[in-house]
């Protein structure tokens, strides 16, 4: 079958060379764990993982909460129905609008010469005098949020749709307060979906490269950026170490996607 041939040739085989390469000595090609030992001993590389994980945690939490509030507002918040379909369309666009153009859009907005910076300055508030920097960790987090929260809205919307009105009515008839309804009914039902989707967002930003590269010019120490540098010219000076670094990334992604799948299955028990 051409499909399996194609998948093997261009997806599975190249990926497996990384896995194999990471267990091989760079020069002798003998089986070894040395690359991983080096990886764990290198504070710079561990730091790269830590920053990647930190930015993914922050943007998946922030994007997840904001996205959930948005989706809930549009679906159950008593807004006119057209808001919902517009929100879905916008989110479809925004979650696809990423990478280099997204980076530039935020440069135009919030760089020292940006439009919003100009407006704020005109109002007598220069964010750059108050510790704001676009090309740093927090600036990048702000940019990542742009593709994180729309994804949350798109993925969580069916789960919110699945919350039956009867449950709210039943809870109210039994005298539950709004807080009790959320604490004992809605939240436990939605929790697997919310957590699962946040894990998906985590993976979404963990693998991101183009946005960070274009925004910071590669000045931020993310795993994906280090791999990009390694690919451009062996900056680590050790091919095996580069493979190990890449494999580590795949492992983190695999854990994230597995977690998402498991939680998604959990949530299907209630929401159908």
């Amino acid at each position, binding site marked *: 079958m051409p499909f399996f041939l194609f998948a093997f040739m261009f997806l599975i085989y190249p990926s497996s060379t990384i896995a194999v390469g990471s267990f091989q000595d760079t020069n002798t090609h003998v089986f070894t764990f040395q690359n991983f030992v080096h990886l764990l001993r290198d504070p710079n590389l561990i730091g790269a993982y830590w920053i990647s994980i930190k930015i993914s945690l922050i943007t998946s939490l922030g994007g997840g909460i904001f996205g959930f509030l948005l989706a809930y507002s549009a679906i159950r918040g008593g807004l006119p129905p057209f808001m919902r379909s517009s929100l879905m369309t916008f989110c*479809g666009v925004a979650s*696809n609008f990423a990478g280099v153009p997204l980076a*530039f859009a935020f440069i135009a*907005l919030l760089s020292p010469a940006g439009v919003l910076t100009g407006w704020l300055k005109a109002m007598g508030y220069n964010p750059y005098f108050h510790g704001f920097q676009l090309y740093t960790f927090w600036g990048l987090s702000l940019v990542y949020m*742009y593709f994180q929260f729309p994804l949350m809205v798109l993925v969580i919307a069916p789960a919110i749709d699945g919350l039956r009105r009867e449950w709210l009515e039943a809870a109210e008839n039994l005298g539950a307060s709004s807080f009790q309804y959320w604490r004992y009914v809605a939240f436990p039902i939605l929790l697997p979906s919310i957590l699962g989707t946040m894990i998906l967002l985590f*993976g979404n930003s963990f693998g991101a490269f183009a946005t960070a590269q*274009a925004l910071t010019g590669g000045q931020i120490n993310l795993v994906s950026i280090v791999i990009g540098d390694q690919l451009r010219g062996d900056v680590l000076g050790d091919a095996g170490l580069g493979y190990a670094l890449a494999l580590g990334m795949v492992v983190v992604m695999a854990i994230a996607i597995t977690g998402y799948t498991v939680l998604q299955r959990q949530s299907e028990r209630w929401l159908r």
Partner: protein
Amino acid sequence: MKRSGVVWSWFWMILGILYFFLPLVATFLFSLRAKLGILSFLAYQQLFTDDDFIKGFSFSVLWGVLTIIVGILIFVPTAYWVRLRLPQFRTAVEFITLLPFVVPAIVFVFGLVRTFSHPPFLIVDSPALLVAGYTVLSMPYMYRAIDTGLRAIDVRTLTEAAQSLGADWATILFRIILPNIRVAILSGAFLSFAIVMGEYILAQYLAKPAFAPFLAFLIQQKAYEPAAATVVSFALTWACMGIINLFGRGRGQAPIAGGH
């Protein structure tokens, strides 16, 4: 819903709208500032007459179209065959089509370059590798779109009817099945197209002319032209999504993708 709930809903929506539109408005305003003191479309003029822009953009369009064609040629027969004859392979195929989510694009291109830059596969400079890579990146969306399309039609009956009229496999696939799932394919195709147009990593590291690497280069060089190019890119994304929505009106959910 209580009154205060509605107020909060509006609050979150307005915040979302601001977050969504502010960067775009800013980019647009920025792109009009090329002439000192007045608003003008000068940046767009300069962009559209820039040879590198024309080259990058048209190559991206070419890669996008090729990716769609290759995707259709590979995934339609596969999805059809799995549905009709080999349901036991279903899990395996679905697993493979989702693999690009697990392997980040930067790791994927790392593997591609390392695999295909030395014998026996010395094709790292060939555009074919780029198109193959794009096909892999768009696989989750394309395959799922095709599979959804096939689920909506009665594959077995159509096949048997065609067979009893003497059609061979190519006729069945391309004259019976393909036209019946064309709407599903088109939505997958436009999504793939949007992905390829915005894709940076593959084109950059396989050193092929394309729109996103050009834009990244432009950001380092100039101020106003990249703003114009960003607006063009956004309009393109919007157009693709709009077309998909138009096709998929009333069914399915909004497409989810991204090459970040």
